[in-house]
């Protein structure tokens, strides 16, 4: 009887252990320097994903700060990169459908800082180069003029 109880305890602990999800990514949120308070910025600059594979999911929040004195609407979009880092290939065209942007058109109040969760979910059975790159572009759509600026976060993905 005691042996049975012991075995049940062991089996239970093993099951609990197996059911534990992978720990979420460690999100470092350093304080922006004070001089950026009245500037529009995004963070981070790069997200590096390692050990990625078909069927896997990776996510990271993109932080957007509106440095203007009035609310601004931003577009948050997937971008095929215009150029890539050394050793990286442009993301496969299908990758656009793998990327989930929690809020693609946030309206951010003056001086507000907002997180938008970005997730990349690669379906099973799909393929990608060993190392590939895509961008998440953030643009203040209230900009006017012929020359407009955009900020982009680089996602650098390395397959398992």
């Amino acid at each position, binding site marked *: 009887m005691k042996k049975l109880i012991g075995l049940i305890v062991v089996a239970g602990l093993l099951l609990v252990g197996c059911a*534990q999800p992978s720990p979420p990514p460690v999100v470092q*949120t350093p304080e922006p320097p004070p001089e*950026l308070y009245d500037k529009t*910025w995004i963070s981070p600059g790069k997200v*590096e994903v390692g050990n990625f594979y078909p069927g896997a999911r990776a996510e990271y929040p993109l932080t957007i700060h509106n440095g203007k004195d009035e609310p601004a609407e931003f577009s948050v979009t997937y971008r095929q990169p*215009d150029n890539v880092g050394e050793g990286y290939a442009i993301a496969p065209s299908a990758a656009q459908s793998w990327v989930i942007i929690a809020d693609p058109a946030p309206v951010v109040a003056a001086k507000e800082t907002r997180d938008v969760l970005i997730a990349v979910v690669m379906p099973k059975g799909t393929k990608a180069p060993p190392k590939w790159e895509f961008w998440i572009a953030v643009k203040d759509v209230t900009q006017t003029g012929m020359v407009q600026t955009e900020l982009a976060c680089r996602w650098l993905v390395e397959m398992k």
Partner: protein
Amino acid sequence: MRKTLLAILLALALVVIPAGNALALTSQNVDVTATPAFISISNAPSTWTINGITGSGVIAPNTTYYSNPGGDTVSPTVGGATDGECRFTITNTSTVAINLTVLFPHHTGGDASTNSDAGTNGATSFGAKTYFTGQASAAWVVAKNTGSAVGKSALGAGVGIKWGLIYISQSNAWGSGTNMTSTVNITATAS
């Protein structure tokens, strides 16, 4: 009794050793890390009327225009553009060095002239390039509809640089008589 004790000890060991870590070697964990940086730029002015600096603002076919304060059809110095030949100033207000990439999309409306993506013009297509101060003409980068190369790489944090645009209008005459538009996009990414 000994076996029961063994079972309890094993159970305790499993409690002490986090199961997630013990299984990490065989599970397929994805690693996600981020560079803790802030990306921010400013650019001024945001306007450019092609052939509107000293000219009339009317664009003739088959003509090269520059955003050169010294003249709409005056080329920057081919040996190295000077500050005075650049209309725009971009400042890297990021906390890290950045790359700058410029896109000049196809026009919409009117004749809907398309970007040749080659830096040269043709029938119904225009060419476009960017230049940054100090760059000789060989380094002036084609501003494409999509997929431009980096125009200025590793611009240091807190550093400003002057830059300009070149537009070569389509070789054939306009047909519609209606305005067409395009918005140039300059993208900052961490180097």
